């Protein structure tokens, strides 16, 4: 900025007298009203005093890739952080594509946080390995700690949970979702539920559906009874239906209930008794669980159906006959997760009643390539016709048609997330036998708000041309078994300016395709490519030209020939440089 220009501009409209000084007095107050991280990042760049003030006042810190910055650097800038969200492994780890021991350990962050962030209250970790020792350290060092949410994490067990229960006196949220606990021998298991303090607690949410061991029910019931603020309770399948009824009687104020087994094991319960428990739960809006469903008990939930905004039936092979009487009462449903056992007919029933539906996920009972498959293009069309406000869909099927996808693209303009998984590789349109290019093309063309897309089926480079041409808002793209040549990858990398997360598996993209993204990789959070046609020399070229990227080649074989195809590439920009905790099977170029 030339000084002359500045003076000229200032001469026309002189800045308010004392504005710098005046504003400094109130700057912290102004900043408290900036919560979005984009606004805060902008504010921090205005000048030095703003940078300092913003760092002092940022309470919510989001780190999308824990390897993008060292914990000390993050913590020393934002010392007064109150809430931290941290994400670790790439999403394909959920499908077993990231070998055990790859990384994403929480220890270095726990060690940075515990002495330096006394004001930390809330922590959300996703796909991170957290040990019992980490949990114990946090629980003992953070006096105001109150919310812990662990999603798809691993590495901890009942000992760590006990440390949290015992030491976090202000605990309000303990949500354990889709985690894999360490194997503990019988004698190692700790009765963590008994470790909560004996006095009334501040608990608002307790979710432990993923814990595969029995909990002490007497302690659990007593805990619920002395937690007057409890609104969300999601228990595991070891809690029987009779026990569930007792819990519900203790907490009629619940809004979210994970029902545990909901089956016949563990004692007899009259359906009527269970139904009156639901009738008393006047605030209930969300149901999940049903892990060992006995359909005889389903009618018990009728009293709450009219108020439900969210149902998760994806853990039970509920049939269309069992679903219908329920779903026809759920006029307010906005979120619905279910297995494909309900068939197209079940989805039709959803479409007829749930006019407010925003999110639908249809999971496969048998997630293999050659299974029967019970939902198809008919179900997709039905949903698109009935649920015009749909924003997010995840749909597993065996067969699909372009026409159905095109129909959805036109009927559901609010779509933000479109994930279609045609199981079975390279499956073409069921009727025309053509590639699925036109369908996905229509999605990117018609759904202007689309930010997340997952494609599947037989796809040529044409599909990627459409994505590159129309997918201007796409931030996350997931590709499996698709494309013809490097051109496909090039279309996407050159055409999608907002692309941040790209994960590709088993697709014929090679070095040329990879290199076409050189101009864009610094704008992305990460790129994952596995079982494609990349070679070591291609990856080295990227590493050489973009020193700010960490380029990881993950595999079992040591490669000494440059042209040998590599198995897995995971690369991401980082301020911290190559990580020091990489295991032997990871080569950082």
């Amino acid at each position, binding site marked *: *900025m030339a000084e002359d220009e*500045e003076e000229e*501009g*200032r001469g026309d409209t*002189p*800045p*308010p*007298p*004392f*504005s*710098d000084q*005046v*504003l400094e*007095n*109130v700057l912290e*107050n*102004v*900043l*408290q*009203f*900036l919560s*979005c*991280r*984009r*606004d805060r*990042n*902008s*504010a*921090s*760049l*205005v*000048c*030095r005093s*703003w*940078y300092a003030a913003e760092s002092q006042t940022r309470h919510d*810190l*989001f*780190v*999308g890739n824990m390897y*993008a*910055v060292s914990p000390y*650097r*993050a913590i020393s800038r934002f010392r007064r952080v109150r809430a931290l969200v941290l994400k670790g492994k790439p999403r394909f780890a959920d499908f077993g594509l990231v070998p055990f021991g790859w990384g994403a350990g929480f220890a270095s962050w726990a060690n940075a946080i515990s002495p330096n962030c006394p004001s930390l209250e809330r922590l959300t970790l996703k796909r991170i390995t957290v040990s019992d020792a980490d949990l114990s350290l946090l629980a003992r060092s953070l006096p105001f700690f109150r919310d812990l949410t662990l999603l798809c994490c691993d590495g901890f067990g009942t000992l760590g949970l006990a440390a949290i229960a015992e030491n976090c006196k202000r605990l309000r949220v303990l949500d354990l979702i889709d985690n894999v606990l360490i194997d503990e021998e019988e004698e190692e298991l700790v009765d963590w539920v008994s470790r909560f303090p004996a006095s009334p607690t501040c608990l608002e949410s307790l979710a432990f559906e993923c814990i595969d061991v029995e909990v002490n029910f007497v302690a659990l019931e007593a805990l619920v009874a002395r937690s007057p603020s409890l609104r969300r309770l999601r228990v595991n399948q070891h809690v029987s239906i009779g026990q569930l009824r007792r819990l519900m009687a203790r907490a009629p104020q619940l809004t979210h209930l994970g029902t545990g087994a909901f089956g016949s094991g563990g004692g007899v319960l009259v359906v009527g008794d269970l139904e009156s428990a639901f009738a008393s739960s006047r605030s209930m809006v969300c149901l999940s669980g049903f892990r060992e469903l006995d359909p005889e008990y389903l009618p018990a939930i009728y009293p709450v159906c009219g108020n439900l905004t969210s149902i998760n039936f994806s853990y039970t092979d509920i049939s269309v006959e069992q679903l219908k009487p329920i779903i026809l009462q759920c006029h307010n449903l906005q979120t619905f997760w279910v297995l494909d056992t309900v068939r197209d007919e079940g989805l039709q029933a959803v479409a007829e009643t749930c006019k407010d539906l925003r999110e639908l996920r249809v999971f496969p009972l048998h997630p293999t390539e050659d299974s029967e498959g019970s939902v198809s293009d008919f179900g997709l069309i039905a949903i698109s016709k009935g649920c015009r406000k749909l924003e997010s869909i995840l749909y597993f099927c065996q067969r699909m048609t372009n026409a159905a996808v095109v129909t959805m693209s036109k009927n559901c303009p609010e779509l933000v997330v479109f994930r279609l998984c045609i199981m079975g590789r390279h499956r073409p349109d069921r009727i025309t036998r053509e590639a699925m290019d036109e369908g996905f093309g229509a999605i990117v063309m018609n759904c202007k708000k689309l930010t997340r897309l997952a494609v599947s089926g037989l796809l040529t480079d044409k599909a990627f041309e459409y994505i590159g041409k129309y997918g201007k808002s796409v931030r996350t793209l997931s590709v499996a078994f698709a494309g013809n040549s490097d051109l496909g990858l090039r279309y996407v990398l050159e055409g999608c300016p907002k692309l*941040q997360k790209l994960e590709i598996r088993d697709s014929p993209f090679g070095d040329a395709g990879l290199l076409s993204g050189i101009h864009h990789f*610094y*704008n992305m*959070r990460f790129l994952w490519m596995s079982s494609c046609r990349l070679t070591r020399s291609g990856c080295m070229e990227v590493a050489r030209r973009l020193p*700010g990227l960490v380029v990881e080649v993950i595999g079992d074989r040591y490669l000494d020939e440059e042209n040998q195809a590599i198995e897995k590439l995971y690369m991401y*920009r*980082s*301020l911290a440089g190559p990580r020091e905790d990489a295991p032997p099977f990871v080569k950082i170029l």
Partner: protein
Amino acid sequence: MDMEDDTVQVRENSAEDTEMLELPKDPAEVKASEFIKGESSKEIPVESQQPELPENVVLQSLEKEEFIIKLAVGQQSEIIKNAILDGRGENPVPLLNVSAPILAKAIEFWKRHIDAAEGEDLTEWDKAFLGDLSQEVLFELAAAANYMESKSLLDCTCKFIADIIKEMKVEEVRDYFGIECDFTEEEERKMREDNAWAFEQ
């Protein structure tokens, strides 16, 4: 009592009816001190019996202008409230960092908020009120709110300013506030990278 000054309206006898005095457009014209002398025997209990709190409060701006307001109105500022509770209510509360036009605006804000019905939503009124102010007055009002420790006014003005700068690019924010950037180009580039790579997405 005969009041010749038609810039001010006062009702006699009824304590409840004693509104904040309507201020003329140019506060410099208010001969408040004259008015006080004339009115004090009726409207303002000068010899307030302890621990009775005075009905009205007198505020004194930077220029020594005086403003009379109801107690309830003034209590929206901690400084004023404390001055009264300390028994200094009968003397004008000096607000030496606040100029008369700004003080007048603050009073207008407080009065509207005190008069609000139970549960009345004043968001639109606040927006219009602040939107009418020049940038200079807006900033000074925020600073005054900070100085006078008036949370309601401070939050309102700061939120309004925050809403203005939301969505602004960094350069636009600097222009708006007349702030000079004191980072070098290299520093700024590096910080943008830090923000984007680690803390944005």
